[in-house]
């Protein structure tokens, strides 16, 4: 007997918001990436949960989306971290507060 769907959704929402918190509050660029990965993981959790609690049998669409999403997240992490390294090399900082060249 698995707990009901909304419990999973609440956990996923909490994970999402913690990720959001990390992405919004921390100064270090890597934290932002960590936060984004957490948000993605929360989304994956939702996909899987909705697949599991959807009417059965059905094609494992949620699982597929989660797999693809993990792959994309890996790509995103690779590029993001490469960016962090490149930015660090160039500006000698990974503090996003100091990276405000886009300031209007």
């Amino acid at each position, binding site marked *: 007997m*698995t707990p*009901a*769907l*909304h*419990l*999973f*959704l*609440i*956990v996923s*929402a*909490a*994970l*999402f*918001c*913690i*990720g*959001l*918190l*990390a992405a*919004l*509050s*921390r*100064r*270090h660029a*890597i934290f932002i990436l*960590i936060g984004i*990965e*957490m948000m993605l*993981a929360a989304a*994956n959790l939702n996909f*899987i949960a909705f697949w*599991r*609690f959807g009417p*059965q*049998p059905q094609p*494992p669409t949620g*699982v*597929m989306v*989660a*797999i693809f999403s*993990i*792959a*994309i*997240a*890996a*790509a995103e*992490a*690779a*590029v993001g*971290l*490469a*960016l*962090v*390294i*490149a930015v*660090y090399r160039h500006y*000698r*900082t*990974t*503090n996003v507060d100091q990276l405000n060249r886009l300031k209007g």
Partner: protein
Amino acid sequence: MNSVAFILIAILTLAAALAAASLPKLIHAALSFAVTFVGVAAFFFLLGAEFVGLVQVFVYIGAVAVLIVFTILLTRRDVGKNRGFNWGGVAIAIAVFGGLIWAILKTQPLSIAAPPIEALTVKRIGEVLMTSYVWPLQCVGLVLTAALIGALILVMNEER
């Protein structure tokens, strides 16, 4: 038993996530991040998607966490500094959390129990992946290749 497992995993995951978001030392946060993803993988196991759980562990612990750790090493001079914390972000995150919880609890049809399912074998995933989802699979492969090359080019030495 599943409920017990659920509660344990939830506590583990969320605690690790909070730690990852708030620990002052970047390296601790990165390790907590890994634990968070183990927790999420455990959730996947609990939900019957073992393959995804394994992939999650494999990709996040084996690749992403190691990448993060390497990035931390390569930008080490910066790690000790910038302990700044933006409380506005906390407020926004809490507000979003409130909104999400409210929306979840408000929607009644969500509190349903899980229907019984046949086990999602790797074979079935493979079959679906190679039939209905073969194009997305190719696209993801392309995206990964592009990301790999892009990341390599990004971290190549800047020609000055």
